[in-house]
């Protein structure tokens, strides 16, 4: 068991003929992900990666031909909102947008629109998902994680890899890892993922990686206290970040005194969550937690 993706997931890649799209599709295939189609308008009928993946002109045509149920988006920021709308209008239930740099007003419109459809969006500005041993959708390296029972959810990219790696070298496996992205407006938040992990039969504990900016960690803390039975271990990045500066991620900024790491850590601790002082401490806390 896992959440959101598994070995049966049929993946479609939007922007498959671009540099990023092509490279990561190769990586996903190598991992064993079931890639069924690619979309690049104007290149329908071609095949890529040694004839392994057919390319279609639109998401609708690709879905009709292949039954794809997850789309992963690698198109540039200025075209990404359109790609998300296209996937939603083709009734794709899970859309994963890797693209960084989408204007925030575009994302607000996307969110309102998606709320009226049956599609879930992961990202944007995220590394995607990994269910070790079964499927990876996005850019998380496959060789730094083992199958297991720890659910991981994170706002970050390489920091997530760091945590997966720290778990792996201590022999701890992961049910599913979800990178929800570093933008201020995203499709799926901590609470959505915590809910999925709570309901997942295989997941026994959860690791939540947050960072400065916004109040999603605080809201998650409240959710954990009131709704979760499974233990959660957390780490919050940005304790030394100065206020008013955007720390790389569009969403990582302390504004008007809110969104500080100290506030988030305090809220999580008050909710009974073990908070690691650094990523390499997480495996120890997981073990004592269990």
């Amino acid at each position: 068991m896992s959440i959101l993706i598994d070995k049966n997931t049929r993946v479609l890649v939007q922007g498959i003929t671009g540099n990023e799209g092509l490279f990561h599709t190769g990586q996903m295939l190598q991992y064993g992900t079931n890639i069924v189609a690619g979309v690049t308008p104007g290149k329908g009928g071609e095949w890529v990666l040694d004839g392994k993946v057919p390319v279609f002109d639109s998401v609708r045509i690709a879905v009709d031909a292949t039954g794809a149920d997850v789309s992963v988006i690698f198109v540039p920021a200025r075209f990404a909102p359109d790609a998300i709308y296209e996937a939603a209008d083709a009734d794709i239930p899970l859309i994963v947008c890797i693209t960084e740099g989408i204007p925030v007003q575009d994302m607000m419109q996307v969110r309102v629109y998606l709320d009226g459809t049956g599609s879930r969006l992961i990202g944007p500005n995220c590394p995607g998902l990994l269910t070790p041993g079964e499927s990876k959708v996005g850019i998380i390296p496959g060789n730094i994680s083992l199958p297991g029972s720890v659910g991981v959810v994170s706002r970050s990219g390489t920091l997530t890899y760091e945590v997966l790696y720290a778990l792996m070298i201590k022999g701890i496996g992961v049910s599913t890892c979800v990178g929800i992205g570093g933008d201020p407006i995203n499709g799926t938040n901590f609470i959505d993922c915590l809910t999925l992990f709570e309901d997942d039969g295989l997941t026994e504990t959860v690791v939540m990686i947050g960072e400065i900016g916004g109040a999603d960690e605080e809201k998650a803390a409240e959710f954990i206290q009131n709704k979760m039975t499974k233990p959660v271990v957390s780490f919050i990045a940005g304790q030394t970040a100065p206020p008013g500066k955007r720390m790389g991620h569009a969403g990582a900024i302390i504004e008007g005194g809110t969104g500080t790491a100290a506030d988030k850590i305090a809220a999580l601790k008050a909710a009974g969550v073990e908070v690691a002082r650094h990523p390499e401490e997480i495996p120890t806390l997981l073990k004592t937690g269990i």
Partner: protein
Amino acid sequence: MKLHEYQSKQIFSRYGIPIPKGRVAATADEAKQIAKDLGSWVVIKSQVLVGGRGKAGGIRLAKTSEEAAEFADQILSMEIKGLPVRKVLVDEAAPIEAEIYLGITNDRNARRPVMISSSAGGVEIEEVARTTPEKIVKILIDPLLGLRDYQARDIAAGIDLNRECWRQFLQIAKGLWQVYKDCDATLAEINPLVVTTGLKLLALDGKMVIDDNALFRQQSLAEMRDSDIEAPSEIEARRYGLSFIKLDGNIGCMVNGAGLAMTTMDIIKLFGGSPANFLDIGGGASSDKVSAALRIILTDRNVKAVLYNIFGGITRCDEVARGILAAIQEVKPNVPMVVRLVGTNAEEGRRILADANMITAETLVEAAQKAVSEAQRG
């Protein structure tokens, strides 16, 4: 990216929002001429991208054109919170009956734009929110529908605005919404929006922040960037597509990924050190980028040690290692360097750096501890 008051107000004006008559001056003579042309009392306002200009003496009321010249001269020689005043706005003074706050920003939690208004204008809205939150009215806007007339009326009623002014207020609120939308603003603010003794509404001050992610389609706004607000090293970093923020510590950091870069700063602090910067070299960092990054880190004389923390995923450690080697040969740093390479092709990366006289570390903790002790020794 922040815009100056005069830039924001010029934009407001194009959207039917009334602003005081006035122009920008870079010299006392220009200010004097503008005051003469206006033929009234004028307000001389420093144009710097920080708050608290009034308290710092950067805003003065001049009753004559001679006074305008004198005050402009004083203000143009000031620094406010470390920023030089290069321009002043010379605005016709307005007879003020009441001061209102009106702004639009993104409500992150609601995932929608929010219009905020208050009858307690003229002070920072955060201050009003702390002291008299009951004086604040907020209305969420559907990003697909935009601001509706009834919402603007609700706000006017909510702040007890004189009914005589409602029609004007509606026009201003809708204009501000359009500004926010057309300019990809993350903040569009009028503070204060004044009611004059003649019951006319006037945007006395203006502030806008533009979404950096949207600058690709906001060319004319992008050109308005004032770089005074950034450290020279930050401007240089942007040229190379590096995400860099200067801090006060003595351990330079070079990391791939924003979350990991913050974590590296945090762990340095946890072990008793102090980071000199935030730096994300991004994915697939070329040797050009790595060289530029090292040069930028070392321009800071406080730096006593450099910590490289590279987690190879899609980014390959051998590629970054080659970049580091080229950077060292080019920049010839004379501070100790601690390097930690993990993940894809880490072995190969370590081999490349074996002769580079660097201190190596396996774990994040070990890397941080070594960097801290090196910096303390230096």
